[in-house]
């Protein structure tokens, strides 16, 4: 058999990639295109007819102030979360690779929050914020202590805190891999040349870990932009719909308010925003990558 023949290569490719590719097209590409079509209809999500309305849904998307408020809120939430997640994850990774006693135990421990589903996690923290913190505050002598979740800024703070707690362990693993990939000899050479440990970290280790940063920031950005589960179970958009993130607004618009077409259009715009941010970040990050 001729291994360099085109037909052989194609059949080999199809054998491996074909089934998965087919499923990918069936479950991601086709629904995406169908969704695109739905943005041009005024379908309510359940009716048999899907009246064509042109760009009306996009017009109402741009006129939907609640949507843009939700996007703005998501941006603020994402900026804080992404920065904090990565700082905490990097610090944890440094800690558990520096040779402290029982570091494998700590690695597992920090990772565990990520194994709990977002919905459960939200309910657990809701209990902590609403009952545990309030009880502690009251036992410390504060009368009529109110839950953090009952104020606008408090709810946002809680969301960020829980997200950081949830994702820091996961990102830590990627940073741990990054730390391990930097060879000891390079660090040693830098130290012999007179670097302090901090300088070695700044000038040798961090530049060599750049790909870890790119990955972690990309993952945390996309996850924060699309946050839904924690949002639903922790705050449910309350108080006063002031913690409704973009994804939750899209869901409400499409399913609860039964404006499926508008919801779909809003989802598409959210996707575009998210894609632009993510791709830009990866492009900038990759450009300055150095090879060891």
């Amino acid at each position, binding site marked *: 058999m001729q291994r360099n023949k085109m037909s052989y290569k194609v059949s080999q490719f199809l054998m491996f990639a074909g089934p998965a590719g087919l499923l990918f097209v069936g479950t991601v590409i086709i629904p995406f295109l169908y969704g695109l079509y739905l943005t041009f209809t005024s379908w309510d999500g359940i009716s*048999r007819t899907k009246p064509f309305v042109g760009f009306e849904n996009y017009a109402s998307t741009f006129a939907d102030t609640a949507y843009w408020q939700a996007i703005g809120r998501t941006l603020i939430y994402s900026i804080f979360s992404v920065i904090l997640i990565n700082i905490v994850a990097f610090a944890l990774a440094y800690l558990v690779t520096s040779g402290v006693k029982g570091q494998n135990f700590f690695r597992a421990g920090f990772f565990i929050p990520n194994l709990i589903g977002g919905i459960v996690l939200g309910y657990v923290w809701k209990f902590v914020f609403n009952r545990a913190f309030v009880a502690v505050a009251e036992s410390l002598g504060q009368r009529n202590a109110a839950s953090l979740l009952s104020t606008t800024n408090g709810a946002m703070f809680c969301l960020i805190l829980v997200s950081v707690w949830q994702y820091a362990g996961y990102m830590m693993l990627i940073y741990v891999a990054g730390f391990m990939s930097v060879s000891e000899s390079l660090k040693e050479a830098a130290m012999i040349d007179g670097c302090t440990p901090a300088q070695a970290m700044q000038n040798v280790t961090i530049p060599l870990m750049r790909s870890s940063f790119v990955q972690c920031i990309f993952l945390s950005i996309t996850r924060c932009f699309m946050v839904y589960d924690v949002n639903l179970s922790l705050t449910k958009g309350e108080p006063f719909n002031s913690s409704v993130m973009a994804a939750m607004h899209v869901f409400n618009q499409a399913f*609860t308010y039964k404006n499926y077409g508008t919801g779909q259009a809003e989802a598409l715009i959210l996707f575009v925003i998210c894609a632009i941010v993510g791709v830009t970040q990866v492009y900038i990050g990759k450009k300055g990558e150095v090879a060891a």
Partner: protein
Amino acid sequence: MIKMKKFLALALSAAMTAGILAGCGSDGSTNGGSTGGSTSGNGATITILNSKMEIQEQLEKMAESYGKSKGVNVEVYYSSDTIAAHLSTRYASNEPYTISMVDAKDVYSLAKEHAVDLSGEDWVKDTTEAISIDGKVYGFPVCVEARGIIYNADAIKAITGSDFDPASVKTLDDFNKLLSDLKAGGMAAPTGIMKEDWSLAAHFLAEVYEQQADPDAFIKGLHDGTTHMADDAIFNSMMDTFDALKANNYAEASAISAEREVTEQKLAEGELAFMFGGNWDWSVINQYDYSDNMGIMPVPQNGSTDANTKLVGGGSKYFFIDSSSNTSDEQVQAAKDFLNWMVYDSEGQSFLVNECALVPAFSNITLAVSDPLGASVKTYADKGALIGNYNYLPDDHYSKLGAAFQEYLANKTDRAGFGAAIDSYWQAATLSEH
């Protein structure tokens, strides 16, 4: 050797595909199905969507025994999703339920396209709560539910020393006097408020529309900008009562993070005396060590209407039968038989009233309702003292005005501000045609 490798490669890619496919398995997270019964008889299988969580267990048991005795296969499903959202996924996949339990507003939005005309059924003459559109009956009322102030008579008696007669508290002045007596007697905060948007906007605020002589005209006035909420007598009267509830709220400082379960537990155990709610709250209250004498009374008001002698409510949760080609004639017939069974068969009646503890919407059912809140509702329903539900509120009403109401509850806005928020909501809203 090459053959061996090729085989391995194929096996590997097959395994990978299987792995991917496994991810697409049907999700069992929110929908638990249960099958019961043999398939003798005409062998039809009917599927029922239940949207009342508290009767899921009873329905599953019924499915089994009903299926066995009637020779049909009954499958009961439950979803905690928004009903319309859940049904849309089922319709999108061409797998509608034979019978779906939905809210009244869903019947209005779905029935014309998706429901079987039930006008010819016997039970139509025995109920006033069925939903018909353009003269055709589509919705079978599962039960009657009504809203008002839930009271704990034992807790009140423990302080005042005399039996509590809800009829003695008709006006807000009476109510305020009783509240201050209770406080003087040692109950620190006699009321609780559910901060949930559906309770505030879909239940409490909705009473303002429902108590109007002509709710449609009132809402049209709000929409056209000719009526202003803050000027409305009923709105002000209801909000006066709400202020009394708010001022005596046990969770005054954290009113908008008070949890429903905690509030109802306190009410059940007599730590509180009053809470605005409805007879569906019994399914929460009965989880706790509840007092024997509880009930629902009309919202006390000083206004000039007779609304303070009536509860607000009516048929709640409706069954409709799917009319699409996915449901066969045998299935439709089996579904109709099932509805008749609940109304006319003594076992069916007992299932509805005794096991599910629902207030029946049919005049021929005379079984006594066991839970105290349901019993209150039945008393009012029997004497015709129910103000009907207004079922045409837009889908985003409860969420958007619920948020505005929460701001009022948290003292972020005053009554004028809240009224203005309601005005601007209605001016921008699209009114449903009916």
